[in-house]
C-alpha cells in the first residue's frame, strides 16, 4: 500500500507527514507526530478525549482520516497555551479543580474553546449540551461546567 503524502498546518506550524489510507488523524498525531495530548478513550467518537479543531470546527480525531488533513488548519491541545501563558480556560480548570485524573481534560478544553469561540455567552444548558460529547468519569461535570461559565463571563468582561 503506497503511503499518502499530506501537507497540513497543526497549531500554526506547517507539517508534512506520510500515512496509510486507513490511518486516523489521532493515530498520526499520537504515534507519528508525538502530539500525545489528544487521548484515545474509545476510538469510536463517543468520548471526546481525542477532540481537535479543523478550520475551527470541533472534530473527533479518532473519526477523521489522517489524509483528510490535507490543506486544512488543525488545532490540538498542544497549541492552546500562548508561549508561557495558559489559555484562560486552562487556568480556570486548574483553579477550580475541574479535573481529577485529567485524561478527559485536553478534550474538554478543546471543545470548550470551540464553544466560546462561537458563543461567548452560553447558558448553563448550552454548555452542558455542547459538552455532552465529552465523557468525564471523575468529576460529575460540575466543576467543568462552572469553569467554562466563569471563563465565558471573564472573557466578556475583558472584551468590554
Amino acid at each position: 500500500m503506497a503511503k499518502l503524502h499530506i501537507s497540513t498546518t497543526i497549531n500554526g506550524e506547517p507539517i508534512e507527514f506520510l500515512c496509510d489510507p486507513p490511518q486516523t488523524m489521532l493515530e498520526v498525531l499520537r504515534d507519528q507526530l508525538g502530539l500525545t495530548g489528544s487521548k484515545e478513550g474509545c476510538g469510536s467518537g463517543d468520548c471526546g478525549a481525542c477532540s481537535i479543531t479543523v478550520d475551527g470546527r470541533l472534530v473527533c480525531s479518532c473519526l477523521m482520516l489522517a489524509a483528510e488533513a490535507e490543506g486544512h488548519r488543525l488545532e490540538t491541545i498542544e497549541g492552546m497555551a500562548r508561549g508561557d501563558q495558559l489559555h484562560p480556560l486552562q487556568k480556570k480548570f486548574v483553579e477550580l479543580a475541574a479535573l481529577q485524573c485529567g485524561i478527559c481534560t485536553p478534550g474538554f478544553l478543546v471543545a470548550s474553546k470551540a464553544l466560546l469561540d462561537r458563543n461567548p455567552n452560553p447558558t448553563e444548558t448550552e454548555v452542558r449540551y455542547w459538552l455532552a460529547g465529552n465523557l468525564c468519569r471523575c468529576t460529575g461535570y460540575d466543576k467543568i461546567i462552572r469553569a467554562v461559565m466563569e471563563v465565558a463571563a471573564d472573557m466578556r468582561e475583558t472584551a468590554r
Partner: protein
Amino acid sequence: MSSQPYKWIGTRPNRPDGADKVTGRARFGADFNMPGQLIGKVLRSPHAHAVIRSIDTSAAEALPGVKAVVTAKDFPEQPNVIVPTGEMQVNLRDVTRNIMAREKALYEGHAVAAVAATTEAIAREALSLIRVEYEVLPHVIDVEEAMRDDAPVLHDHLRTEGVKPEPQKASNIAKRMENIKGDVAAGFKQAEIVIERSFTTQPVHQGYIEPHATLASAAEDGQVQIWSTTQGHFQVRGFCSRLLNIETSQIRVTPSEIGGGFGGKTVVYLEPVAVRLSQKTGKPVKMVMSREEVFRASGPAPGGSVKVKIGARRDGRIVAAECTIALQAGAFPGSPIGPACWTSFACYDIDNIQVIGYDVVSNRPKVAAYRAPGAPISAWGVESALDILAQELGMDPIDLRLKNAAKKGTKTSYGPTFDTIGFVETLEAAKNSAHYKSPVKPGYTRGVAAGFWFNVGADSSAAAHVAEDGTVTVISGNPDIGGSRASLALMAAEELGVDYEKVRPVIADTSSIGFNFVTGGSRVTFATGLAVVNAVKDMIRELKGRAAKTWGVDPEAVVWENGMARPAGSNVGEFDPLSLAQLAASAGKTGGPINGHAQLNVQGAGPGFGVHVVDLAVDRDTGIVTIDRYTAAQDVGTAIHPSYVEGQLQGGVVQGIGWALNEEYIYNSKGKLDNPGFLDYRMPVASDLPMIETILVEVANPSHPYGVRGVGEVPIVPPLATVGNAIARATGVRMTDLPMSPPKLSAALDAATPRMAAE
C-alpha cells in the same frame, strides 16, 4: 468547619501537576514509547465457556514482522494461594488463568494468546492466523441461575467454602459467609411492622476513560522495567514477580499518570503478558487495550441479588434486620461479598442482625473493585426497604434514619465498635440543608438514602528531602488519581510551617521508595498522608539537631515553629531563629544532607457516612428520569483540599446515578456482551445532570493528626436507592431491578397502570 486554625489545610491552591494536565504534557499509560518497541495484541475467546483443545500458532509465527507468540504454556503454573490486591483478595492460581486462559476459556473476551509484532497492523493480522480448537460448553451468566444445582459448572475443583459438612460436589457457589449479631428470630417477634423485599442489580463497569496500557522492557541481564497505568505499581511489580518467577527487586515499575481507575486498575491484565513477550523477543513491548477489550475483559463490578427483611416498632425503631446477598464474582471466585455484607446495616444501631452472603462464579469477566466494592448493591436493597418502612410508618425518611443511626459505641454486625463517627451529624446536615428545606417543585419528587464505607489504612512509605536552597521534595508511592499530590503537599507544608509552593510532591517508582499499598479504599490522603506527615516530622527532628549543633546546645533545647528553628526558651541562650534555607545552606558543615523518612502500617481509618437527597421527575410516557437537584452530605473528617473532596463526592454521585438509571452489561443468549462500547453502555454526560451540591461535614478522625477520613468511596453508595426512592414516590411503583432505564421504567409503569396503557 474545623475548629483548628490551619494555615494550609482547608485551602484550595492549584494542584502541582495542574499545568501538565491542561496542556497535554502529562504522560498517561499509552503515552510512553521506547525505541525499537514492538506492539503486543491479545487474542480473545469468542465463546463464553469452552474447553481449549489446542492452539496452533505456527502460521502467526511465520508472518513477517511477528516476533513472538505466547499462550498459557509460557506462564508457569501457580499455587492455590490468596494474596491481597486493593480491597479484594485474589488467588494466584486464578490470576494466571485470567491473564491467559489455560484449560478453558471462561468468558467471552478471555485472553487465549498474545503476539508481539513490529506494527499494530501486523499484530492484528497475526491474531487472525492463530488457530484455536474449542469445545464449546453450556454457559451460565445470571447469578441466581449459576447457583442452581443443574447449572453448568465452571470449575470442577470448586467446593463451596463456609458450609458444613464440606460439600462433595463441585458448585458455582465459591463461598457462603454470614455475620450475626444478637438473635434475629427473637428480634422479629418484637416487630410491629415487617418489610420484606428482593432487589437485583446488573454488572456495571468502572468506566475509566483511559484504557489499560503498559510498556515493558526485559533486558538480557534479567532486569525488567515496566511503565503502566495502575492504581498500584507495587502490586504490578508483585504480580509480575510471582507470575513470571522474577525476583522482585529485578523489576522496576514506573506509574504513568492514571486516567481513572475507581478500583479497576488494582489488578493486572496486560503487564505480565507484555513482560513475557519482551523476554521472548528481547525488545520493549507496548500493549494498549481497545475500549471494547476494556469492557469485555476488565472490571466490571458485580451484579447481584439482595433480599432484605426489616422489622420495626411503630415508633420507627428497628428491632431486627436480615439480608441475603449473592454477588457475581465473574469467572473466578472473589466478588466483594465481604464488604457487601459488612456494610449492609453498618449505618444503623440494630440489636439483631443476620447477614448471609454468597460468592458466585459465572461466565463473565472476573470482577474487579469498583469504588466501595459491594456496598452500593447491599445499600440499594437496604435503603430501598427503609424507604418503604418510612412510607408505611408515615415518617420522614431522615427522621427514621436518625432514630436508628449508628453512633460512637455502636457495635457493628461484623465486629468492630465505632469510635467517633459522623452519621448523626451528616443526617442533620442533610435535613437542615437548603435543598431539603426547600419545597419540592410541582411535578418533582424527593428521594433520600444513606451509605457507609469503612475506608482503608494499610502500608505506606514516604520520604522528605531538603534541597540546597531550603525548598522541599516530598516523595511517596501512590499514583495520584484525583489530586492527592496537592493534599500531601498541603499536609507537608502545614507540618513544616512553610509555603505550599515550596513543597514539591513526587510519586516515585517501585525502586525509589519503600512499599506502598494501592491507591484505593480511600486510603491515600489518610494513610500515605500520615506517612508524609511522619517523614516531615522525622526531617524536623533532623533540622532541630542541625540548629542545636550550630548553636552548641542540646537538640531538646530547640523547637520548630513556622518553618524556623528557635531556642525553646530564653534560658537556652540568645539565638536568632534559623530558617529552612539557612539550615540547608549550612548542612554540609552540620552533618550533610537533611532528609526524613517514614514507613508504617496505618490503622484507624475513620469510616465515612453519606446522606443524599435528590429531586427528580419521571416522564410517564417515555420512562425518562430528569434529575433537577442533587445534594450529597458526607462526614469527611477534615477536608484537606476541599475542592478535591467536593470533586470526589460529585464524581461518585454521578457514577451512582449512571448505575441507577442506565448502566448495565447486556448479554445475548450465547453469553456474549452486546454493548461493549460507550454508545450502548451509556454513562452519564453533562446534559443529563444538574450541578451536584455538596455538604462537607467535618467530624475529625481521632486516629489522624489532621483528622483525615477517606472520602472517595462513600459517595457512590447512596445514589442507587436515593434515585429509586424518589422514583417510587413519584410513580407509586417500587423498582427492584437496576438499572431503572427508560424502557424498563416505562414498562413497569405500564404494568402498574394497565388501564391507562390500554387507552
